[in-house]
């Protein structure tokens, strides 16, 4: 740029102008895209505070003439146990994540740092597992759960996801780069393998654990397929399933209340994302898989 500027005295003005034009174009494109991205959110928040008569008015206005948020949220909360859905979401996602970490971390450490019989086979199975979509085993699992009589329980909602081959894969990769000398030194100090994993290696793997946690919670909080299959009891519904019941119910035609309900259902994860934006984005970058 500066080389060109020296050659042609008129260039700085021209290049500044060109830069201004290109910046305008870039931001126009990005803002147009942003409007498309935000459209349902804006509509949701705006409808949640409008009285029924104003929602589908001919001209869309952001802020209602009559502030109706209290009524909408109140009728949303009284017709459907929305807070219960959120609680179910916390229980299911939390339960899944805790077991996933407890199972995957030692296994990943063993695959990365310990020589034991069957290690190549186990790793091959982990890679095989990575190729199988979560929907594939659902049919036999459903039959088994029906036979065991554990449909409509938290356990049946969580159990298929207790083992995350992806977690094993990710943590193994992370643990492999952990220096062997530190592990050897700990062994010489008489530290057992169990303690080496949980007190020495795990704290250093915090970024990978955080990344996986983000990935796991986002995936299971928003999962509809499996809860829809195993749960028919409204009281056990997770947020997406609850939202589906809610939209199908009578209040489904009360758009204000439905929008208020959608706001409540979406809020926890979106708020978490807004607070921990960098963690979320780092998590997705590191895991990069759905």
């Amino acid at each position, binding site marked *: 740029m500066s080389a060109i500027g020296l050659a042609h005295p008129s260039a700085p003005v021209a290049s500044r102008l060109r830069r201004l034009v290109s910046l305008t174009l870039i931001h126009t*494109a*990005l803002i147009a*895209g*942003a409007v498309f*991205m*935000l459209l*349902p*959110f804006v509509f*949701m928040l705006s*409808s949640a505070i409008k009285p029924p008569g104003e929602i*589908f008015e001919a*001209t869309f206005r952001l802020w209602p003439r009559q502030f109706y948020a209290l009524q909408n949220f109140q009728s949303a909360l009284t017709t459907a146990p929305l807070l219960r859905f959120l609680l179910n979401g916390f229980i299911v996602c939390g339960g899944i994540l805790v077991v996933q970490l407890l*199972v995957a971390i*030692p296994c990943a450490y*063993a695959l990365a740092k*310990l*020589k*034991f019989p*069957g*290690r190549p086979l186990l790793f091959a*199975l982990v890679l095989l*597992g990575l*190729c199988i*979509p979560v*929907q594939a*085993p659902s049919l*036999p*699992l459903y039959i088994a759960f*029906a036979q065991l009589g554990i449909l409509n329980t938290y356990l049946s909602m969580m*159990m298929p996801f*207790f083992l995350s081959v992806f977690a094993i894969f*990710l943590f193994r*990769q*992370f643990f492999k780069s952990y220096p062997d000398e530190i592990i050897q030194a700990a062994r010489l100090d*008489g530290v057992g*393998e169990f303690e080496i*994993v949980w007190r020495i290696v795990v704290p250093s793997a915090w970024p990978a654990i955080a990344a996986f946690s983000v990935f796991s919670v986002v995936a299971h909080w*928003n999962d*509809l*397929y499996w809860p*829809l*299959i195993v749960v028919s009891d409204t009281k056990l519904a997770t*947020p*997406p399933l609850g*939202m*589906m019941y809610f939209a199908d119910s009578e209040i489904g035609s009360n*758009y204000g209340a439905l*929008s208020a309900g*959608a706001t409540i*259902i979406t809020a926890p*994860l*979106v708020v978490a994302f807004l607070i921990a*934006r960098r963690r*979320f*984005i780092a998590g*997705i*970058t*590191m895991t*990069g898989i*759905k």
Partner: protein
Amino acid sequence: MTAIAAPPDMVAAPPARRQQWIEQLAGLGFATPAFLLLLLTNLAPLAALAFLSFTNYELGALDFAFVGLKNFGTALHDPVIRRSIANTLLYVAIVVPGGVLISLFVAILIHRRTRTRGIYEVIYFLPVTSTLIAMATMWQFLLHPNLGPINRALKLIGLSEVPFLSEPRLVIPTLAAIGIWQLIGFNMVLFLAGLSAIPRDLYEAADIDGASHPVDRFLKVTWPMLGPTTMFVTVTTFITAFKIFDTVAVMTHGGPMGSSEVLLYAIYLEGFQYFHMSYAATLTLIFLAFTLVFSVMQTVVLDRRVHY
């Protein structure tokens, strides 16, 4: 462990063997829970799936018989399944190029921003974290034939109403647009990571070579350097798109007139609504066959990609 205190000549041999023992025991102990769960929740169900597909088992039936490949034959001639596969492929054919190219474009535009990058990142990523079921309900309002704001706006600028979800030919493209809306942020983040990994001096070198126009820079540096990321994003997008279920289950239920029936939704109906277990198992195997090539590619790329 107590061997540290032992005389030097004793240290070498026995502790090494002892260490081997400990490693083997600990390794097996650490791996067993994962292995059992893998067997129970993944491998055994897959075997059962293959087994079921050769039977005529229905949930609740006391007896079943082997029927060979009959289920596969039925599936191949089932108009619902053929339609579902065609619709799924059409959806994938829109979402994959759209979801990859748009997010690449957005990532390139956002990448160079300094002050505004954060806000754009948040906006474009927002749909990834929001519950799709809730947002699908909102899209349904927005797209409502005569009351929805989108059709109102179209009418306002003199265009005619578009029956996004009630016209059979428009349903899949509409759902695909929502699918892309949900995916852009996710892919964008991966592309942004890929873009920041490109060394700056490559652009300087391209400048010296006379490639200073943005299009030249893109074709000579960005595109080739992003190759692995693009490949990974494409494969992941394919798998995600092929698994379309949520928007169909909430917004269209496969309609109108079967024009939005997709494979996973057909499996759901056959297996968990009509309880035709053996048939649903067959359909699941067909579903697996479609995704397998891409899942294997994803795993191979992932194996090479995740390095610290």
